[in-house]
């Protein structure tokens, strides 16, 4: 399923990651999946929460630059090779994954969940469905 991901711009300075995390903690917002992209000069913190609208508000109030983007969240079997099937579909469809990261472990039903960022998530959904993978199945958050 398509989910709204939030990203926050961070400078490379000690204590910077704390700012958005503390804002979310104070507002009682739990982070379900996250990734931190680092470069020499700055970082981009991306994450998924249950209520992105509220989180966005909280972060903006804390002075963060926030961006909302759609990512594709798909469940796979939590075993060696579980991810591989998806990657093969994307490769066949000649799609570039901008970046990806995993949800928290210990999901029900022996599943793992991943978030993928594509330029056009709709094409990825179609490619997965063409391969018989249910890409619009809701994911428990």
């Amino acid at each position, binding site marked *: 399923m398509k989910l709204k*991901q939030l*990203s926050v*711009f*961070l*400078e490379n300075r000690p204590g*910077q990651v704390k700012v958005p995390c503390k804002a979310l903690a104070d507002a009682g917002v739990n982070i379900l999946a996250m990734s931190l*992209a680092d*470069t020499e*000069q*700055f970082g*981009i913190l*991306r994450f998924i929460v249950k209520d992105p609208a509220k989180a966005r508000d909280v972060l903006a109030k804390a*002075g*963060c*630059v*926030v*961006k909302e*983007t759609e990512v594709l969240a798909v469940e796979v079997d939590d075993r060696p090779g579980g991810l591989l099937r998806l990657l093969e579909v994307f490769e066949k469809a000649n799609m570039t994954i*901008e*970046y990806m990261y995993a949800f928290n472990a210990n999901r029900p039903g022996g599943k793992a969940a991943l978030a993928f*960022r594509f330029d056009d998530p709709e094409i990825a959904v179609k490619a997965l469905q063409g391969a018989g993978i249910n890409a619009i199945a809701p994911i428990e958050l």
Partner: protein
Amino acid sequence: MEQTQTCQPSGSATRFNPESAPDYVPLKQLRALQLHRLQAIVGRAYERVELYRKRLDALGLKPQDLRKLADIAKLPFTVKTDLRDTYPYGMFASPLEEIVRLHASSGTTGKPIVVAYTKVDLDVWSSVMMRTLSACGLHRGDIIQNAYGYGLFTGGLGAHYGAEALGATVIPISGGNTDRQIMVLKDFGVTAICCTPSYFVHLVEKALEMGVNMKTLPLRAGIFGAEPWTEAMRRYVQEHTNIKAYDIYGLSEIIGPGVASECECQAGLHIFEDHFYPEIIDPQSGAVLPDGQEGELVLTTLSKQAMPMLRYRTRDITSLDTEACACGRTIRRIKRIARRSDDMFIIRGVNVFPSQVETALMNVEGTVPHYQIVLTREQGLDKMEVRVEVTPELFSDKVGAMETLAKKIGHSIFNITGIHVQVTLVEPRSIPRSEGKAKRVLDQRKM
């Protein structure tokens, strides 16, 4: 059909203010007045100020040698350090009993410079500021929020007296306290605001954050001065609000605000040359340049009693436009001042102006983000870093896109200045905001 751009003042703005009559005086009459005043002021300066007397004597010049306006070029220049060297009262041409006001400009190093006004000087100041506001389309009935700083800085009181003389309603809010500024803008039915352009950009941003849409307010004019700003900033301001953004010009050494102002045409600033005589010189050789050519603006006060300035070098780079303006004013115009020879910094032997960096940012991003130039020296090598605040419009969740942005800005700055710079993307509001003049350059080089 081809559209020619003409100046079409809105109905209310064309109201003629009789006090603005000197703006429209026939040129022959104006030149005669200028010569008459020049001869008088040089005489006064020579008799009463030691520095001028010594300098004229050294050249074998007497005030009587000024027979035509062009003879002004015979006079020596006055520079800012002259005011420092004679600190505090050495340049006064009136006894303290006749001086009713002192202002001081914040010096960047050491002592400030002190400027003085007699009662007559204050009246002239009010009238040129009134003519300024009038040229910006303001009149009785306007509600003017004056957010220039009140105090030793000439901006606040200069605009204040001009607005009162105009008969407008003045809100003397002074600078700072942004939340309150926005509340007053919203609640008091303010139609015009006076402040530095960079502070107004800050107000626009803050209003957006507070959920106040400036376009819904009756605010229709911004009177912006005290620092150089660009057409890019004007576009930004005029797009985000319903105001017409006017550029005004002045400096404490001459009188304060009220030396020159744009009119409805927003095509150069009319200089109130019945009081302030302009010349453009080559900043290197000091030679007077022909009209239209770009150089440093030199001003002579034609009527200032307490502190006459003879050929004062402003360090501002502009040119004189003698073309008739569509507004009908006969007084000449100076081109908008985008840079000061003071603002210029030299890095690895190359002259760079902050306005060039601003243009480069504008070319890439289409807006004017907050930025700061930081100069450092590492192992004898000058380095220039440009810090740019990331706005929600610029921010992308993709690392590649952000790196491309920084690279593009770097290229754009290189294309304009020829200097390779390090571009650092920083968090919003991490660059200090000024409530007066924006500090664009942080020079941390140890010479």
